């Protein structure tokens, strides 16, 4: 087994001690530790320690929402063509870190880690190309019965909270993250609780991409602790509960969401069959959009 702390993978002979990575949060384009100072151990399938991940707190979540809100106007303000290129660039950088993702997933006991990384990169690239096609496919001109020009355009809903599942720690995260941000939303994502390490590495890829700080914020920690605060935060416009497998916790989150008429969504069934093409769709993007309809009279 190869893992982040495995000395044999140093490549400089068995005598060299490997330099393991400290896994931190990715918030506002920076890599803070938790303000709470807490961590939790992430173990491999044999029980061996892979790393200590940050045990993110409610305050970390609030900081991340603030960063996401601050970044939202700038992100949606970019041209769709520019957003597409920036996101495609993330795919390029993920490809460059392919080996690191594979190692982290394999160390965490994920079968066919290479296949999962390939699928994650391909999915990211697939979504990147949607940026400038959404109004053409999801909006349009409406034939109203009167002398008006009337059109409907999709817009991002704003700041989105995402709870990623434990399953497919990189691919599932990417499969839900990409459709959220491609339209101009910003996001606060809680990584797989069981294996958050690839998510943190994805943050490092993002930090060296052209995605502005704050557009994607990645937290690690406990779902039971953080999920209610996602749904109860009044500056979060929508929440994706795909990773919340505890029915009571999901219901509690949905109740909290009602207080601000927050949009709640989750991928299930074929939409959450991560290796399948059914897990990618413009309707996954649409779940985080608002449709705006504009009227103007026609006249000389």
């Amino acid at each position, binding site marked *: 087994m190869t893992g982040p702390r495995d000395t044999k993978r140093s490549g400089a002979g068995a005598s060299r001690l490997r330099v393991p990575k400290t896994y931190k949060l990715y918030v506002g384009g920076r890599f803070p530790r938790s303000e709470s100072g807490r961590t939790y151990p992430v173990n491999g399938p044999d029980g061996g320690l892979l790393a200590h991940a940050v045990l993110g707190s409610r305050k970390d979540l609030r900081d991340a929402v603030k960063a996401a809100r601050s970044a939202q106007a700038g992100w949606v303000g970019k041209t769709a063509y520019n957003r597409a290129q920036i996101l495609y660039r993330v795919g390029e950088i993920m490809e460059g870190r392919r080996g690191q993702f594979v190692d982290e997933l394999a160390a965490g006991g994920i079968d066919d880690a290479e296949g999962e990384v390939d699928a994650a990169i391909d999915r990211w690239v697939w979504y990147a190309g949607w940026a400038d096609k959404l109004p053409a496919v999801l909006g349009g001109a*409406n034939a109203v019965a*009167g002398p008006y020009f009337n059109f409907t355009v999709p817009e991002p809903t704003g700041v989105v909270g995402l709870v990623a599942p434990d399953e497919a720690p990189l691919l599932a995260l990417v499969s839900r993250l990409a459709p959220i941000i491609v339209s101009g939303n910003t996001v606060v994502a809680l990584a797989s609780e069981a294996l958050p390490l690839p998510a943190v590495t994805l943050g490092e890829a993002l930090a060296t991409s052209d995605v502005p700080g704050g557009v994607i914020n990645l937290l690690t920690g406990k779902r039971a602790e953080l999920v209610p605060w996602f749904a109860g935060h009044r500056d979060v416009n929508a929440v994706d509960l795909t990773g919340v497998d505890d029915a009571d916790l999901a*219901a509690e989150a*949905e109740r909290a*969401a009602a207080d601000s*008429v927050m949009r709640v969504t989750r991928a299930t069934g074929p939409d959450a069959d991560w290796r399948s093409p059914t897990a990618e769709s413009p309707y996954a993007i649409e779940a985080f959009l608002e449709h705006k309809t504009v*009227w103007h009279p026609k006249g000389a």
Partner: protein
Amino acid sequence: MTDLTQPGEFTLEYATAPESTAIVSLRDTYGLFIGGAWVEPRSGSYFPTINPATEEHLATVAEGGAEDIDLAVVAARQAWESGWRDLSGRQRAKYLYRIARLLQERSREFAVLETLDGGKPIKESRDVDLPLAAAHFFHYAGWADKLDYAFAGRRAAPLGVAGQIIPWNFPMLMASWKLAPALATGNTVVLKPAETTPLTALLLAEVLQDAELPPGVVNIVTGAGATGAALVSHPGIDKVAFTGSTGVGKRIQAELAGTGKRLTLELGGKAANIVFEDAALDQAVEGIVNGIWFNQGHVCCAGSRLLVQESVHDLVLDRLTTRLDTLRVGDPLDKNTDIGAINSREQLEKIQELVASGVDEGAEIYQPDCVLPAKGFFHAPTVFTSVSPSHRIAREEIFGPVLSVLTFRTPDEAVEKANNTPYGLSAGVWTEKGSRILWMAERLRAGVVWANTFNQFDPASPFGGYRESGFGREGGRHGLAPYLNLVGA
């Protein structure tokens, strides 16, 4: 000689022009419409519905209880499983076309009944509510057999039984907004009309019978909040569609937590109607009037906050108050009436309380010198100036004929003030500059933006809110999605 260019120096005397009510024949008592038949409520309970313009009793209507809701849901489920679910889109389309045609044929009858039961001016129920209601059925009829083309890459499958709760401000129109897309997509329905305006929905049941819609495809259960709550919490429904207040919408969303039921909400609003100094001001004034005094201001998307550029504030207010003086308030059945009755005593008291708060908080009130009828529920059209964004009349939805006027200097400030609300249903922009319209439209956080117009509706045009004004769209292709599962092709 009277100078006709000077407003206020002459008045026009209007003879009354009442619409006849002879076309409407009311029953004394209405049961529930369940499984294609009229049934007495198991609850044994009834309530009166009155004409809000006269306070006269119109009819007695069944109040559905939990047992009645259960019967209606069972009937809807049975109708779905025994045929409606598997009926071809072409067949469903023809039922909807039939309903649209029958509504057109009986349009005047529906319009008079709508005005009698709800208090809205006959010219609005006649020219807006009923034509649009028929148009919605006609529009969605044509979607029923074209769903394969609506969602690329996915197959559209109906959900099952939809529970639909509609408000009292556009009773028949809201029934059509709810029923037409639900039926077109192959769902069956339990519809709960508003307590104060049940009669047109009950007349619609006759139309459904005449259209030979299979029994149980649409069930109509009248009642108040408790009836709606029983429908929302019934385990046999797959989807809830609600139009009403944000407060009730939040309770419904919380109630459905963890149930897996689908939900769409069309809730309240506090729309900004923004007038720039370069606007065509006479048109803008008409748009302001239409924006807030259409349907007594009982409109979730009403332009209840006028944001006027400081440089033209006095000019706009002068023209607006002059125009306001010409609005005719009174008998909703009079074809000249601009502002009819407030829908209920409860709503009138809510409006009066908010108007009093505006005065108490220091805003300046203007009301035209109009005589309100002695009986019935009426409220003079009202304009508040010197309103600050913190005043209750600038923040809370009044749902009445009350306009709050605020000012701005720059487009940025207009956007900031317009968006400074938890709501996001609609907005208006008045300017002759095209690039500014598009710039503003992009920044206003609202589901509908009317530029150089206001309060336009069409079945092909998606309608719905951002933020606390709800989620989901009604109208057009977008209005299909809330009633469908999109499954992998």
